[in-house]
């Protein structure tokens, strides 16, 4: 199959390169898992690479005892669920309306959407607007501003337009209005696109931390990513004990082997777990989603 010597050299080089590359991509994750499962004091002696040396679950126990981290986890779950469901629903309704040719002003509405993809007011005016709307320190700042995504609207619209027209017409004849057609005919047929966009949106919500860091100062409203960012930042700067709440600190003092490093690794693993859990689905749909998106371009 590989005719010349040059070809064989190239193929071997590619295989070796890809193996090394894949391993080094994976290594940081494996290393973090190993550290999170290792006794903190033991880790401090150095030498942990892929496997825990002194296995323990203490790091995770401390994480699960820290009320702040757990409340962050709950907030993250809440905002992901509420944010995804509401955004997908709102965007689907909007996109369906935009597919209708008889919609008055459709061309202008579309222009209004497209323009926002090229120009935005920037961070500070948005920040001041959110502030004037009284959305500081409110859970809704996670949900409402990102309710309608123009990009998602275009993907939805393209999908809806590809559905057979006859179905909608027969629903109309049977007395279905636009809303009825959307909910009884169109949405039930849109499984793949809904799955893809929901995954996009959910992963985005779970990973988002910046919005909370500028709009939220109440600790009980912070998502876990933002809390984690604060913990890691204080670790990098001072390499001291992460600021935990009293209960967790007491537990940590009692456990004795837990260090801030082993603790932050455990927290990171907890914050990553949902992503790893949905990853198989993500892979299946995302690849399609990316291609849908790029076809539009």
């Amino acid at each position, binding site marked *: 199959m590989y005719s010349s010597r040059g070809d064989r050299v*190239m193929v071997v080089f590619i295989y070796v390169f890809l193996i090394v590359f894949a391993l080094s*991509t994976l290594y940081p*994750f494996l290393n973090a898992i190993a550290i999170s499962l290792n006794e903190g004091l033991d880790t401090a002696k*150095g030498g942990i690479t892929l496997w825990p040396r002194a296995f323990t679950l203490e790091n995770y126990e401390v994480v699960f005892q820290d009320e702040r981290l757990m409340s962050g986890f709950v907030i993250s779950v809440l905002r992901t669920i509420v944010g995804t469901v509401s955004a997908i629903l709102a965007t689907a309704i909007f996109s369906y309306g935009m597919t209708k040719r008889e919609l008055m002003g459709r061309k202008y509405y579309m222009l209004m959407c497209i323009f926002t993809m090229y120009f935005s*007011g920037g961070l500070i*005016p948005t920040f001041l607007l959110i502030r004037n709307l009284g959305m500081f320190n409110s859970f809704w700042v996670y949900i409402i501003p990102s*309710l309608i995504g123009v990009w998602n609207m275009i993907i939805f619209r393209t999908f809806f337009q590809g559905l057979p027209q006859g179905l909608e017409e027969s629903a109309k004849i049977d007395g279905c209005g636009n809303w009825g057609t959307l909910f009884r005919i169109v949405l039930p047929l849109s499984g793949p696109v809904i799955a893809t966009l929901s995954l996009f949106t959910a992963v985005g919500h779970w*990973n988002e931390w910046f919005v909370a860091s500028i709009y939220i100062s109440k600790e009980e409203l912070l998502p876990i990513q933002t809390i984690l*960012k604060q913990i890691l930042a204080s670790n990098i700067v001072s390499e001291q004990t992460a600021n935990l709440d009293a209960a967790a600190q007491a537990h940590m003092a009692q456990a004795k082997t837990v260090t801030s490093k082993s603790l932050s690794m455990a927290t990171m693993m907890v*914050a990553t777990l949902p992503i790893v859990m949905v990853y198989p689905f993500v892979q299946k749909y995302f690849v399609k989603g990316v291609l849908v998106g790029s076809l539009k371009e």
Partner: protein
Amino acid sequence: MARLSVDQEMQPAMPRVPYKRRSNGFARFIRQIDLQLMVLPALALIFVFSYIPMYGVLIAFQDYKIGHSFTGSPWVGWKHFAYFFHSPDFYTVMRNTIVISLLKFCIGFPAPILLALMLNEVRKMVFKRVVQTITYLPHFMSWVILGGLVASLLATDNGSLNMLLERLGTIQEPINFLSLPKYFWTILITTNVWKEIGFGSIVYLAAIAGVDPNTYEAASIDGASRFKQIYLITLPSIMPVISIFMILAIGNLLSAGFEDILVLAVNPALRDVSDVIDTYVIRVGINNYRYSYATAVGLFKAVVSVGLLTIANYVARKSGNSLW
């Protein structure tokens, strides 16, 4: 659907048609109110969260006071722009923005193409799938997690990199990589490539899959080596895709993300090499409350970005691959 569009097209041609039905705009609007109610709330949201901030850009020309409306503060003309251009921060911020963007572009843009070309040469499907699964993974992690992983790898107390270098004997003392300016750009770019290379390769792999297999067969009968086939068939075939993504990348040159910098450049000692326009806007605007000044800096960036996009598209149109 069909009935309605016929209706619309026929109207101008038959002036006398419907007596009562000859609807003025408003009546038609009311009749399709259920449809309008599908789109108007969403448009209202877009108006509020996208267009009002655009209008809010006006505060770049004012001395904005908290609690006033976007036009309620005293106008000061180009004062904030002039201040930015003359401030000592200007040189640092612009240099870092340009250097970091160019590095990201020059390394981060071709990297996924290279990976896709390599993956395409792999004939063992299982191996290909495994490599893809692993390399896509970092894309789905937040920057906070990736920043934490990098910090842990590079840490002085038994970070893996320091352990490796010590074992190899290249260094005597552990190096605190994340506090030394000279390493920052390398770390930043490497982390970016790590996060996005796999995911970025998807589009190119799809483009490569669309190349007619007969072309390769013909080439190999004519004696072209595998390398030559990549160079002479695969690359030219996916050129349209590459150039579209290149235009997009150039348009985003100045806004190539700030989360990575916020997460990796925690140490203030790095500010000299890590401050880019976006992080500067966040620091002076949100942390130091200089809203008008920060808006001016942000507006400056937006204008340069639009300019870059226009130029990139102009060049691409000349070569036949336009975005618009």
